[in-house]
């Protein structure tokens, strides 16, 4: 194969410049894989003709699993036989995307033997993406993955592979152990992850603090974001050090506080924590001097998603604070209630956020037995179209 790479004048332009080039990656793989070589050929044609050449998908998978493999076929199989099948396998990443070189090399060896040699590290949801596999190679890949203890991730109307920030492994701001929770939920919900039985997809994303490095609030049906509810820890000596090194604490920190609850008198910082909005700005700017409090847990927010179909949503508050400690019973009980309701009442391809919009948050809360609280809304309703629950009849006898 090595000497027979297709001519790709357009794609070659994308090997110029300092940013790592995906074309160079495909060419490296193409030195041994006819699949990668044909991918180059078809992609060059797309670049020439300004259109993609992939068919609409198809149902493929490995035995015992309903998801995790995305069928993909070239629309030009005669021209590019190497990619007539070019399926994606989603492999559940270890929490936090930590690896040993040994584990990565084993995955590479399997993928060299059975696939295109191309991957995404990682896909948008978090999985290791093995890009480009023939149907008859899916089972052999899975056989070998079993031997190295890597399992398949989610796709379709199922629980999608949960993912998280690196949390306590390398961050002082983690308000709960994101990696432990992610691994636990992934193991606890293996059936929901592997066999699509939901109205549509459902994502958990675990972020250790409100900086939200995994975009939980924008991209997950249940966003689990670390937060504290006591006082921000202040190291006065370190505050002084920042000031002495030239930080303009008034301008950089105090003036940017959305709760206007920080005071700086030129010597000391004081915070009225009862007005702290937990935005993280002051802590981000002075990581040596300020730290989240000690009473830590997570906030649960529900319902975010990309636009299709009712428009893009951000998650909104469901539970302002919950302790996140194994075995996470309170959290799992709540998840089960949400799923029971949504699976029963949700329409085909309706995300839980859209379901809540359709039935109303109040009705949703009632069904999952969560009390409405003011933290859940930006403000109370502005229209008078209230579904009052009860009315009294004139002639009803007082008892």
């Amino acid at each position, binding site marked *: 194969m090595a000497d027979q790479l297709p001519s790709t004048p357009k794609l070659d332009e994308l090997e110029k410049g300092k940013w790592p080039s995906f074309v160079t990656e495909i060419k490296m793989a193409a030195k041994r894989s006819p699949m990668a070589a044909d991918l180059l050929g078809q992609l060059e044609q797309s670049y020439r003709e300004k259109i993609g050449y992939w068919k609409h998908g198809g149902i493929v998978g490995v035995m015992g699993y309903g998801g995790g493999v995305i069928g993909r076929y070239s629309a030009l199989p005669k021209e590019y036989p190497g990619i007539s099948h070019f399926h994606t396998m989603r492999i559940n990443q270890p929490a936090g995307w930590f690896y040993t*070189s040994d584990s*990565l090399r084993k995955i590479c060896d399997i993928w060299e033997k059975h696939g295109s040699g191309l991957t995404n590290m990682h896909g*948008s949801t978090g999985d290791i993406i093995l890009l480009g596999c023939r149907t008859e190679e899916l089972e052999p890949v899975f056989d070998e993955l079993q031997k*190295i203890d890597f399992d398949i991730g989610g796709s379709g109307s199922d629980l999608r592979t949960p993912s998280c920030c690196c949390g306590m492994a390398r961050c002082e701001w983690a308000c709960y152990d994101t990696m432990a929770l992610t691994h636990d939920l992934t193991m606890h919900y293996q059936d929901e992850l592997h066999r699509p039985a939901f109205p549509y997809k459902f994502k958990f994303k675990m972020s250790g603090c409100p*900086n939200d490095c995994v975009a939980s609030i924008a991209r997950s049906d249940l966003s689990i974001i670390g937060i504290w509810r006591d006082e921000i820890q202040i190291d006065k000596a370190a505050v002084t050090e920042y000031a002495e090194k030239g930080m303009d604490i008034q301008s950089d920190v105090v003036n940017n506080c*959305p709760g206007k609850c920080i005071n700086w008198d030129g010597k000391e910082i004081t915070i009225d924590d009862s007005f702290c909005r937990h935005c993280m700005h002051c802590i981000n700017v002075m990581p040596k001097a300020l730290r989240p409090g000690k009473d830590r847990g997570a906030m649960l927010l529900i319902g975010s998603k*990309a636009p299709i179909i009712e428009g893009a949503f951000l998650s909104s508050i469901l539970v302002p604070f919950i302790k996140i400690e194994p075995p996470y019973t309170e959290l799992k009980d709540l998840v089960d209630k949400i799923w029971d309701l949504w699976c029963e009442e949700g329409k085909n391809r309706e995300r839980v956020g859209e379901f809540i919009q359709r039935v109303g948050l109040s009705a949703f809360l009632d069904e999952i037995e969560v009390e409405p609280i003011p933290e859940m809304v930006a403000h109370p309703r502005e229209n008078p179209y209230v579904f009052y629950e009860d009315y009294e009849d004139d002639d009803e006898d007082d008892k």
Partner: protein
Amino acid sequence: MAEAMQERRTDYGPPHYEQFLPPIIKENYGKWKYHELLKPGVLVHVSESGAKLFTVRAASGRLVSIDKIRMFCDLADKYCDGYMRFTSRHNAEFLLSKSENVDPLIADLAKIGHPIGGIGNAITSIVHTQGWVHCHSAATDASGIVKCVMDDLIEYFEETKLPGKLRIALACCLNMCGAVHCSDIAILGVHRRPPVIDHTKVKKMCEIPNVSASCPTAAIRPATVDGLPSVEVIEDRCMFCANCYTVCPAMPLNDPVNDGVSIWVGGKVSNARHEPMFSKLFIPYIPNNPPRWPEVTTAIRQIVEIWAANANKYERLGEWIERIGWPKFFKMTGVEFQSEHIDDFKHAGLTFKRSTHITF
């Protein structure tokens, strides 16, 4: 075969992360005290115990070959006792316990074409989707535009000279596998031609009620065409979301003449200072111009530079625009405000300006 089936396991889940954590992380798990940005692309985390962990963040396209992963592995073996990780934005991260290994690692990364950066007040890797490399509904390529934009903005990846963080994301159609809707700058592939219906295939390949229900604007209704059960599209109501194509392969929207990208600005995910925000439409349409998409890279550089020159320290793009007002932003960038900029989907009224608070 029967034997093989007996041995076959399912639902064993991912390997436990603990086995992949370097000893210094295991020892200091949950005990990190603070961190500092030592120089662009290099962090140190200091533990309560005094232990120091150095992080080197390297650029990576998200599409990587096994050859490259093996090169990363070699570097991990050479400098990091065989450990490495990836970030939520596709960067490759190397975790070192010895500070003297930092610079040699950076030099070796440069040799294999991977600059370091993307930490602090910088642009980091672009989160993106598959595009023409692997997707049937793509209105543009993903990896190609990302490569061009990052080539152009590389100085803002390698240095920390911006007022605040800037996050760019790209999705090659409205499905938004990359969920770009809360990015400082979002590049979104768009179709602009209604679906072309293959009436001979609709009944065979699609559930007609599902197809009708899939349309956010109720533009699709059942119809009999040439004696065949099919659907018709009220074209005036079509806003090209392609959700019908997702449920029905007989209704493609892909079209080389009309497909292209739109640019959205001012979103954010983090809660720092301002609450999370959606990105807003800025440039409704730029035709696809592969292989280097010069109109897209120029537009994005202009946004970045105007923001960088005018925003306050830490002020994200959306926060800055909110402060100066959208009319000023359009004026400063010279982009023409058009009818496409005004929302006309559900709850559009909430986006109208409902006060006298404007500047002249």
